[in-house]
């Protein structure tokens, strides 16, 4: 069952812009985490419950923003090109629920991840998307290389050299013919 679902989701194009809210399974995950703390359940569960209900994602073509919170609102925005490394962490419970934690690191001085995207159904696809937006994409380099090669004919320096060569040949011929 799971496999067929996976195949279907992979077939359809992954559009991160469609992700605005975390998956409902995230609430289940939060509940399980809170239950694991036994006595601390209400204290752990309430903040997580509110976090789940206020959590919003926005993926645009330059970066991603994430906001949550009721009393203390928090919003993080980071551009794709500033991403240093991507960590995908999945513990046992998250694997069962099909979730993952995608932590994105920038070059800031804080020790923790700058943004931890939780409750995403297809973490691999999201990671691939972020990976393609990161610096050092091969495709862009290739395009530049091809552009350079294409420009070869209209290259100014080369044109100049050709002209010099032509001039030189003409000069030599004229010098030979008139001693």
């Amino acid at each position, binding site marked *: 069952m799971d496999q067929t679902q996976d195949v279907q989701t992979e077939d359809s194009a992954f559009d991160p812009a469609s992700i605005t809210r975390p998956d409902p399974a995230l609430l289940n995950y939060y509940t399980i985490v809170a239950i694991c703390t036994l006595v601390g359940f209400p204290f752990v569960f309430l903040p997580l419950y509110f976090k789940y209900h206020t959590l919003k994602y926005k993926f645009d073509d330059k970066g991603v923003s994430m906001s949550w919170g009721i009393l203390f609102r928090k919003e993080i925005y980071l551009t794709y090109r500033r991403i240093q490394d991507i960590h995908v*962490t999945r*513990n046992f419970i998250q694997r069962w629920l099909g979730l993952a934690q995608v932590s994105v*690191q920038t070059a*800031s001085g804080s020790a923790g991840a700058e943004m931890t995207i939780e409750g995403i159904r297809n973490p691999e696809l999201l990671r691939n998307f972020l990976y*393609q937006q*990161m*610096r050092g994409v091969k495709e862009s380099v290739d395009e530049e290389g091809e552009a350079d090669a294409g420009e*070869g004919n209209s290259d100014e320096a080369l044109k100049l050299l050709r002209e010099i060569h032509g001039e030189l040949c003409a000069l030599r011929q004229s010098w030979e013919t008139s001693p």
Partner: protein
Amino acid sequence: MSAHTDKATQWIYHGLWSVLVQWFRVPDKPPTLPTVGDDVAESFRPAEGFLRYMKFRFWIALLIIDIAIMGGWLIGTIALWRNDLLWVGLLLLPPVLIIAIVPDIIAFVAIHLRYDTTWYVMTGRSLRIRRGVWTIQETTISFENVQNVKVHSGPLQRYYGIANLEVETAGSGGSAGSSQQKGMSNANRGIIEGVTNALELRDKILARLRQSQSAGLGDEPDEELQKNRIGWTPAHLQMLGKIRQTLAHWRAEAASQ
């Protein structure tokens, strides 16, 4: 006899592995990395020496801890014996043995699992590291962002012919000292543990680092700069060669006349 026990342990291990894959959703395939063009993703894992190195450390720790536990039990029993309570000491022997042995078995299996779940994937553009059984961590670092590469190996690691390769990106992901303890999953850092060809890998990564021309932290490539940069392409050199040839001919003719 030993062949039988080998088979039995292998069978148990396979059983454990399938339980992990089925019930704990541990991925049984190595991680992949998207590649572009003729780029190949090569995946590898720690060397055999790494397993032996971890086992060596395990035996040392086992020896120390178990001697401490059994020594403690022996002293306690002798003290009880003096007070004619030998039976209490003997009664304590089974739980003490359990305390001494059970964690060892778990640790031994954990070493094997840790070895089997560690994977490294490298392409021309980036590096991906997967590590962990209970919590699986996958780190992706693109070489464009790498700031420095460290290789280090202690005396014991050198004996087993392995080394750790540490790839760091910008940012301060925790202090360097705690990285060893904190499960190797620090931010802004990827650690390739226990490989025999660490220096070779380092040179490979450094070669790829040199290829990257943008030096900033994610700045857009400066297109004006790229356009105005003058470089000699083969076409230029060919043209210059032709000019030199023409001049040389000319000079030769002038000299002969």
